[in-house]
């Protein structure tokens, strides 16, 4: 699958999910198991993405400048910094670590 096909296909999938919420019978989405999974899924996937994007390079598990970036970002997040500052602090930290090496 090319990147373009993925862009179009996933966009269509995301649109149909949005439309489904407005269209499908309420009982289906009110099912407790469905509701439970829908609460867990975004949180668990975002956590997984944060971890894998920090500690893997291709198929290798690595600890590098990105880990320092994530640690600083976590601190900024705990201090309730705005989104852009959290992201920028991670990038700046990783850049500084690489510069010092």
């Amino acid at each position, binding site marked *: 699958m090319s990147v373009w096909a993925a862009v179009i296909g*996933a966009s269509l999938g995301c649109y149909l*999910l949005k439309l489904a919420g407005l269209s499908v019978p309420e009982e289906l989405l009110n099912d407790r198991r469905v509701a439970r999974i829908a609460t867990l899924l975004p949180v*668990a996937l975002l*956590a997984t993405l944060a971890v894998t994007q920090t500690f893997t390079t291709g198929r290798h598990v690595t600890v590098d400048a990105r880990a320092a970036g994530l640690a600083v970002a976590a601190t900024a997040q705990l201090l309730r910094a705005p989104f852009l500052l959290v992201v920028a602090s991670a990038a700046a930290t990783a850049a500084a670590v690489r510069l010092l090496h």
Partner: protein
Amino acid sequence: MPLDDRTRRSIIRDAVGIGVATGAYGLSFGAISVTAGLSLLQTAALSLLMFTGASQFAMVSLIGGGGSPVAGAATAVLLGTRNAFYGLRLSRVIGGPGQRRALGAQFVIDETTAMAVAPDSVDAARLAFWATAVSVFTLWNVGTLVGAVGAQAIPDPKTLGLDAAAPAAFLALLAPRMTGRHLWAVSLTAALVALASAPLVPAGIPVLLAALVTVVAGLRLEARGKG
């Protein structure tokens, strides 16, 4: 009952404020997407067509990390499932037959839902939904373009640490949702499964395994009746 001017103005002011904040997210999305290797056109298309932030961040960083576009697309769609539940709560606002629902559906995201479920009256909820939709859609797409063009001008994004920006973005998107013991436990398990499987399977697949773990954990928690 028609809306008075004060209510109307306050809704529109909030909608613009949320739009500006989202524009900042858009800026980082544009930069991260181009850094991950997507073209300017692909990046812009994602913000126009997919228009749901977490899914977009996930897709571009998985593809950038060497994952197959299929795995990237599947993860994006899995992250988009929450929008279906938002739609359920918005059916009184943009429900009903026809084109308004089809158009409104594209704008069913975190921000518009938060704004539209707040007011008591349906008129105020409609205004909140559409004002937020216009403001966020416009500024998210403008932000994306500016971020993408800016990042294209940088010869080596790694020296600026831009590869560390995506994990930080996931963390910031995640933090407000991390409420409760079970969410922590399931998230940690999912992340560890992904990390442990990373050397064994092609890039992009670990996240899908994490999704599978999450579904199984959700069913088990429900079967045991845990709150």
